[in-house]
């Protein structure tokens, strides 16, 4: 090898640079590998990435106002919403023109419900006016200002027009503001009225209860995992089946079973009354509140804690404990100083799994949570299926996603994600 070869690229036998040769020879393999994973890639893209992306987009998308009322939105630009006066005739004329088209296409109720999220009453205002305005001819029947106000007093309120103007942008942060108990008004961003502030409380409750559930899972799961890892494999397998049994029963069945156990006339209360520990007229309230949710969810998520702990503990040879004892450590010190630190990766993996599952849990809090024990996901479900405020649901979901990512990042900073092992 000459001196100059150190600076020049290596040449393969065919005279091409080595890098190029290597890339060429690997191309076939890479193409084949890509083809092999292509079905999965397409599946994930279509069924996971794309729906989530579109859902997240919904949390800021707001084209409905400018699509249904294009002329009104343009005219409203010249009106000062803070003046306290009604917009002029041009705005009303543009609005009627837009509104007649909207009624024809049956879009006005959709717009009504959208604006109803911002101020209640908007939905009925749009629906009622729709019937009357449909008969008007926007070309000849003007002027419309007085006429429209006559159909409904709502149109004589500058507030109504302020709301339309405030929410006329193609994109909005309104849903996100709503999601954190704020709102967008013509005067800028304000807190929601006290009576409507519920979501922040729900977020905090969800995080708090998820932490409690994770902690209970650690406390209950650690000894079980330890026994599993230290039993001879025959008995360990039997016990493992018991741990996995809940996985083979429907989630709904398990949750309903807790309802039977915990309710006022349920197994636990009956037993306590029979034992005389609790008097018949003071039965314990252990369901339809936070306690019920924590108990049921701890039970349901326990296997997710035990399995990673177990697989990590299995890799810790018993000689470490023996070595510690031979060096003079008591059982407790040997456990605490030698065994426990080595089992932390399992606790970490289990905690992340349980916490992330818990924070987005829906069914169990819905069934046993009552009003005090529901999670943010129950609110998201409500907005998806009942109030049909998908934008707010999407914003809540996005915030939940960010919260999980932030906590994950914090965990990485504090404990280190390398310190998570599934076995």
């Amino acid at each position: 090898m000459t001196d100059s070869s150190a600076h020049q690229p290596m040449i393969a036998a065919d005279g091409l640079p080595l890098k190029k040769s290597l890339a060429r020879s690997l191309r076939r393999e890479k193409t084949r590998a890509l083809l092999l994973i292509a079905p999965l890639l397409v599946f994930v893209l279509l069924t996971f990435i794309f729906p989530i992306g579109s859902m997240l987009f919904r949390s800021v998308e707001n084209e409905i106002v400018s699509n249904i009322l294009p002329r009104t939105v343009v005219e409203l630009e010249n009106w000062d919403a803070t003046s306290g006066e009604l917009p002029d005739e041009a705005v009303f004329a543009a609005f009627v023109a837009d509104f007649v088209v909207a009624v024809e296409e049956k879009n006005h109720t959709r717009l009504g419900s959208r604006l109803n999220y911002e101020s209640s009453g908007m939905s009925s205002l749009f629906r009622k006016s729709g019937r009357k305005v449909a008969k008007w001819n926007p070309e000849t029947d003007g002027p419309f200002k007085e006429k429209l106000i006559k159909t409904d007093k709502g149109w004589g309120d500058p507030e109504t027009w302020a709301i339309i103007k405030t929410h006329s942008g193609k994109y909005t942060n309104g849903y996100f503001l709503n999601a954190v108990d704020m709102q967008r008004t013509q005067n800028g961003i304000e807190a929601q009225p006290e009576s409507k502030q519920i979501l922040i409380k729900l977020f905090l409750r969800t995080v708090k209860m998820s932490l409690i559930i994770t902690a209970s899972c650690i406390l209950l799961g650690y000894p079980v995992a330890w026994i599993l890892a230290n039993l001879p494999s025959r008995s360990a397998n039997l016990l493992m089946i018991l741990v996995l049994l809940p996985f083979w029963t429907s989630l709904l069945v398990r949750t309903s079973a807790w309802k039977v156990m915990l309710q006022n006339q349920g197994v636990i209360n009956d037993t306590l009354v029979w034992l005389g520990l609790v008097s018949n007229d003071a039965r314990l309230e252990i369901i339809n509140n936070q306690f019920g949710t924590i108990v049921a969810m701890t039970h349901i998520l326990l296997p997710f804690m035990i399995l990673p702990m177990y697989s990590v503990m299995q890799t810790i040879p018993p000689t470490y404990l023996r070595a510690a004892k031979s060096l003079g450590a008591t059982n407790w010190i040997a456990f605490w100083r030698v065994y426990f630190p080595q089992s932390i990766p399992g606790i970490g993996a289990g905690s992340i799994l349980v916490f992330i599952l818990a924070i987005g849990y829906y069914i169990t809090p819905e069934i046993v949570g009552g009003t005090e024990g529901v999670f943010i996901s129950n609110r998201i479900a409500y907005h998806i299926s009942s109030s049909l405020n998908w934008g707010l649901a999407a914003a809540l979901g996005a915030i939940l996603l960010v919260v999980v990512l932030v906590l994950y990042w914090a965990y990485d900073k504090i404990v280190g994600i390398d310190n998570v092992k599934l076995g």
Partner: protein
Amino acid sequence: MALDTSTDAFVKFDRVQKSYDGETLVVKDLNLEMPKGEFLTMLGPSGSGKTTCLMMLAGFETATHGDILLDGISINNIPPHKRGIGMVFQNYALFPHMTIAENLAFPLEVRKIGKSEREAKVKRALDMVEMGAFGGRRPAQLSGGQQQRIALARALVFEPELVLMDEPLGALDKQLREKMQFEITNLAHNLGITVVYVTHDQTEALTMSDRVAVFNDGRIQQLAAPDVLYEEPENSFVAQFIGENNTLEGVVREIQNGRALVQLDSGDLIDCKPVNVSAPGQRTRVSIRPERVEFHKERLSPDAHLLKAEVMEFIYMGDIFRTRLKVAGNDEFIIKSRNAPDQVRLQPGETIEIGWLAEDCRALDA
């Protein structure tokens, strides 16, 4: 070293038995006495009970029957952490989440020794195994031999009088193993500690120990100094297990003046030293070391019985020649001869006559 210490043995196994399942005994009636400062090796094939004995001494297993005494006190009911016995484990068992220095400080911490004294002792122990510069590393960053030294230092840092070692060199390569054998014995003798060492490697046992206890089938087959064990095995198991060995089977014809005349199954007669045989007519297994077989007739006594042998294979091993013969129907008969300028290299197919001194040929149990 005085081996007759029955009155003040430092470690004593007194009629110890151990069973795991209540049906079979893993250790059968073990009696063993060790004086202070002795290096004793428990040698045996796997499943012979040697590791169980070590674990009972360490306190990780309880004796089903019998007493284990340490310095005259029964330790049957003393938990492992109060026995004050140092132990080196097979895979070192260095705590992976602690640095080397923390590993060494651990036994001192649990003994509540002050920080400055602790640091001084850790440093001294590290220097002792020539690992002074490695205190800040983690076990995973060390090579096998280095981990071995640290495990040794950790077992010694709290100055125990008795140290147990469970196949500590098993995971090392041959060269390193030989070096460590030497270092461990030196260290043990310099510190004057008593060592119980478990291995299945007979070379290790012979080179390191003051005495070796050969285990088989839950019993000590022979407890003796290495040279005695090699040259005067008391039964055919020990003869087979320690070193290379040739066996021939036959029947005792007569015993006279410390000599036994044995007729081999092939009909040939040989002279032996009777060890486990007492009367004519007994079946016996005759044991002879490969290096004690002679085929230069002039070096044998004129009245020695000779056997015909056919050369099967000649292996050149550098320092020695290893020749496989067929003798009295046994074609696994090995002889070893030193590679000297005048040494004969036997050719396969050649027929020779071999013989030996009667003392080197031991008539053992059949």
